[in-house]
């Protein structure tokens, strides 16, 4: 089998699984979970040859081209491509997804829609793999939307809960907002360059066929798509709500599929963005990185804390990409995928054991769930960026890129503050979570008493992922495979050393603060919160962004729709109804005609016409002499008209 076949197997195995599962799942033994997990491992295995090929030759490029539809000179291509970046993503996504599937076997055990769940999960993976492999804008958009659909289905998987149903809907619609931007961006590119294919678009831009403000706007449109999918400020609101989905789904969304799509896409179409566009992106990313971190400090839902940490890390990735750290940003995407999947699965393990997500009801779980504790600890260290865990390498590179960028453009100093401040916050909230959940005395004895370590089907994935969370940063393999598609400016020489120092310092400080507060108790979290009550409230309520949307967008919009409906009924439909009523009113004064809508078939024009007819009836008095008068009058009128 040649490589293309492997790629196609890797892509379509999950789709096949999903298709079989949706129709036959309930009739299969064990409701088909083995099938779905199996196809994912097939997919993963099939992706290994690709990885090998890329590994052997980093400049490797494979294209599978076809036409989806052709209409004369217009056509939409259907193409897949494999290069270093896709090679990594393909492997990583299928790998992580495979273990999340495996983990789900334990986690979702006994759910009434167990088979449906696996179908969705398969489909989600398929969508993401397709997105990774797409070689043109149109196709990437298609899979982009399919990813959105899968997330909708899975976030709202427990749709009996209104919160879950709402969260699914919210995710889809917020993403749609971004998608429209993406689509408009694609349209602009198509209009200017006449092609959807990445390669040709890049060539065109390199040749200067599209440049200046138009390209900047186009780039920002495209980026808007990533803002939605990768939950950047201000379209980040769906991601925390998405925690309503089953925890493995959260892991999948946060680690390998959904949110990664945006970052991946920005990396994929990197040449589309102008330096001006990157400045905007950098600020959006910086804001996201920092503020999401602040919110994470105040949350008590274990999954929400991790969710906000994801937001923050996504900000880092974007920040890296935007400030010239192309490799750094994407590298963080990969390392983050490992440790975030790990953290979610570990959190899921905790939730599975305690049946609560509230940190305030946890504590002292370290002894009861050692595997979970140690693996999660590995994840947290990676998240905080402590060497030699994987997160350290990627995050350090991002901060380095940012500092380099800031040194070259000192007016953007704020970005550096965001980056370093965010690193400090990361350490703080990551270990706040760890300490609250696993150390100290159990705050809910009842729950603690029933807690136990999860079954192997759940812990094995934890361990596997932990290995990668620890080691994925070693060896510089990523730099070897991924090369920037454009020439990037090199930051000042000192930036990297400075970044190393600053990031280590920030992470250490953050962890230390957490230790003092939650283990030693030197700082009372409650007291701090009281002292800065307004700030705390602001953070606790996530800067009121949701409320702002509700008041500023959703409610006015619903009012608009109601207004339109009323307009439709009242004005357009009622236009001649009004004429009718008017005429009817006149007639009623004369007290002559019963305008009751005798037959119910009153119609717009009808009323008016009826009314006029009724008036004309009055002339028909029944007295023949009047008729003759009309006759003579008619003759006279005609005569007068003739003479005049």
């Amino acid at each position, binding site marked *: 089998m040649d490589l293309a076949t492997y790629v196609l197997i890797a892509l379509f195995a999950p789709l096949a699984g999903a298709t079989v599962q949706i129709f036959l799942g309930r009739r299969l033994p064990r409701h088909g979970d083995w099938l779905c997990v199996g196809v994912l491992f097939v997919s993963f295995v099939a992706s290994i040859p690709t990885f090998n090929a890329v590994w052997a030759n980093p400049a490797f490029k494979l294209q599978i081209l076809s036409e989806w539809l052709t209409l004369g000179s217009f056509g939409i291509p259907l193409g897949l491509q494999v290069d270093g970046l896709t090679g990594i993503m393909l492997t990583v996504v299928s790998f992580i997804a495979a273990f999340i599937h495996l983990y789900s076997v334990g986690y979702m055990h006994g759910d009434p829609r167990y088979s449906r769940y696996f179908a969705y999960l398969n489909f989600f993976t398929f969508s993401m793999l397709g997105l990774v492999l797409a070689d043109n804008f149109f196709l990437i958009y298609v899979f982009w939307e399919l990813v959105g659909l899968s997330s909708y289905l899975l976030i709202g998987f427990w749709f009996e809960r209104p919160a879950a149903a709402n969260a699914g809907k919210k995710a889809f619609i917020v993403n749609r907002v971004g998608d429209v931007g993406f689509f408009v961006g694609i349209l602009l590119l198509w209009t200017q360059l006449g092609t959807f294919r990445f390669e040709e678009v890049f060539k065109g831009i390199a040749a200067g066929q599209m440049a200046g403000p138009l390209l900047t706007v186009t780039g920002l449109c495209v980026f808007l798509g990533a803002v939605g999918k990768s939950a950047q400020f201000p379209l980040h609101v769906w991601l925390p709500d998405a925690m309503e989905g089953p925890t493995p789904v959260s892991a999948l969304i946060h680690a390998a599929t959904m949110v990664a799509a945006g970052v991946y896409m920005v990396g994929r179409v990197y040449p589309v963005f102008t330096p001006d566009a990157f400045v905007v992106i950098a600020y959006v990313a910086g804001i996201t990185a920092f503020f999401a971190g602040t919110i994470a400090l105040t949350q008590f839902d274990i999954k929400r804390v991790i969710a906000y940490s994801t937001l923050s890390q996504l900000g880092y990735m974007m920040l890296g990409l935007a400030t010239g750290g192309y490799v750094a940003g994407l590298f963080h995407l990969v390392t983050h995928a490992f440790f975030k999947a790990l953290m979610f699965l570990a959190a899921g393990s905790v939730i599975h054991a305690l049946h609560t997500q509230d940190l305030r009801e946890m504590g002292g779980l370290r002894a009861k769930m050692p595997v979970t504790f140690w693996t999660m600890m590995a994840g947290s260290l990676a998240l905080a960026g402590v060497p030699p865990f994987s997160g350290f390498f990627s995050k350090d590179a991002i901060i380095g890129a940012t500092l380099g960028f800031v040194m070259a453009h000192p007016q953007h100093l704020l970005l550096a503050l965001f980056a370093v401040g965010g690193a400090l916050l990361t350490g703080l909230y990551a270990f706040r979570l760890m300490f609250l959940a696993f150390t100290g005395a159990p705050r809910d004895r009842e729950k603690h008493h029933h807690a136990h370590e999860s079954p192997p089907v759940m812990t094995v994935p934890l361990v596997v992922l932990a290995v990668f969370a620890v080691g994925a940063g070693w060896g510089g393999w990523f730099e070897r495979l991924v090369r920037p598609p454009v020439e990037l400016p090199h930051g000042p020489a000192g930036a990297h050393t400075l970044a190393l120092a600053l990031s280590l310092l920030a992470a250490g400080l953050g962890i230390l603060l957490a230790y003092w507060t939650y283990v030693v108790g030197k700082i009372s979290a409650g007291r701090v919160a009281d002292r800065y009550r307004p700030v705390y409230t602001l953070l606790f309520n996530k800067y009121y962004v949701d409320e702002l949307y509700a008041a500023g967008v959703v409610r006015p919009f619903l009012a608009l729709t109601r207004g339109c409906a009323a307009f439709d009924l009242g004005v357009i439909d009622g236009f001649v109804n009004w004429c009718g009523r008017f005429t009817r009113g006149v007639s009623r004064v004369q007290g002559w005609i019963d305008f009751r809508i005798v037959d119910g078939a009153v119609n717009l024009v009808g009323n008016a016409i009826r009314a006029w*007819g009724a008036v004309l009836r009055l002339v028909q008095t029944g007295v*023949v002499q009047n008729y003759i008068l009309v006759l003579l009058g008619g003759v006279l009128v*005609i005569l007068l008209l003739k003479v005049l």
Partner: protein
Amino acid sequence: MPVITDNIASLGYATPELVLAGFFLFILLADLVFTRNRGQMACTLAILGLAMTLLVTLRLYPAGERLLFAKMMAIDPFALFFKIFFVGSTAVIVLLSPATAYIPRTRQGEYYAFLLAITLGMSLLASAADLVMIVLALEMVSVTSYLLAGFMKEQAASAEAALKYAIYGAVATGTMVYGMSLLYGITGTTNLYEMPQAIARGGAAPLALFVAVLLVLVGFGYKIAAVPFHMWAPDVYEGAPTPVTALLSVGPKAAGFAVLIRFFYAALAVPAGPGRWNPVADIDWPLLVAVISAVTMTVGNLIAINQSNLKRLLAYSAIAHAGYILMGFVLLNGQGLYAMLFYLIVYAFMNLGAFLVVIALAGPLRSEELKDYAGLASRTAFPAVAMAVFLFSLTGIPPLAGFVGKFYLFAALIEAGRAWLWLAVVGVLNSVISLYYYARIVKAMFLEKGPSGRLTVASAHQVLIAALLIPTVLLGIYWAPVARFTDYSLRLLGPLAR
């Protein structure tokens, strides 16, 4: 056009009138002589008479175009067209009458005799080529109509209808005769075919001529029930026995159109090339008639909307249709005339059909009110379906005959160019308005719930309804033969190549 001055020779070309007159007298006499089954016999005789009339009319076709009786009458395909038309519509009335209860048993002989008499009058009117002949024929139609309208003299409504009809008709006729006297004064002739030259020669004051023409128009307008000469129609239609109403809404109306066309196109227009005319002496009578047409259809339709009595509703609908037909009249070309004649044919089928349903249901339903038609479709399906078809045809919805008729009218207007576009627009808007009241009847029959209990319609009526229904549908799908016949019938003044 060849003229036959010799009266005896002329008689050979007036055979339809002779046959009708003969049977008219025969029925009266037979009614006096025989005592048993007089009604049945009179009906049979009337049918026989009409059949013979039809036969002799058809035999006149080879005669081509001639003027008879010293230019008093014209015999041409145009006249023959109308004679066939009148025979046909009267035949429908004769056939439907026996199964109804309108006509008192003892007076059926008179009734059928009068039906033949009115047919005779209409036939003469279609042939009339001289003002004297027009007046006489018109009066024959009118006086017979008065009598038929008041035939159920025991009923107040019928008597009232007759009185109003008579007074209104007499006034209209009087006005017309006065107008004719002026016309005679201006032209010095009473013959239609001599008038154009006389007018051209005379150099009469245009206003005087206009007044004369206008007064004559009163008489014709009354016959076709065009606004503002229409006001007798609703009352008479409502009060008269329904079979008579049916006849009045078709026969005399068509006769009015026949004389209107012949009068204006022979006397007040001069040919300007094949199938085209110009008005003589610059009297702008096309515009006058166009305005009358627009007002007629609009007023008819608007008032019809509020009617609750079916006969009255159909009366107003008939007024509106006169307006439609007049649209073809104003164009001064063969297309317009062609459309008028074609429309008259389909109008006869659908309007007689609609009245026939009303008549057929008047017996079992004991009502001619719209409200009593509620839920009719479930009580007796066939008449209801047929009624719906007739009404939709009257609206002008394809693939029914009424659409083709309207299509020809609008086509003629559009072809004439932008000058008459406004009239076409008025026409189509009126079609839409008319749907409103026609659909009301359909709605009552099909969509509303009414009393239960099946109704039985006389089988004679069922057959007759079917006989009218088939052409109403068929002519909407394939009308080429009728189109050819109509085309041929346009020869009223020498060959009128379209």
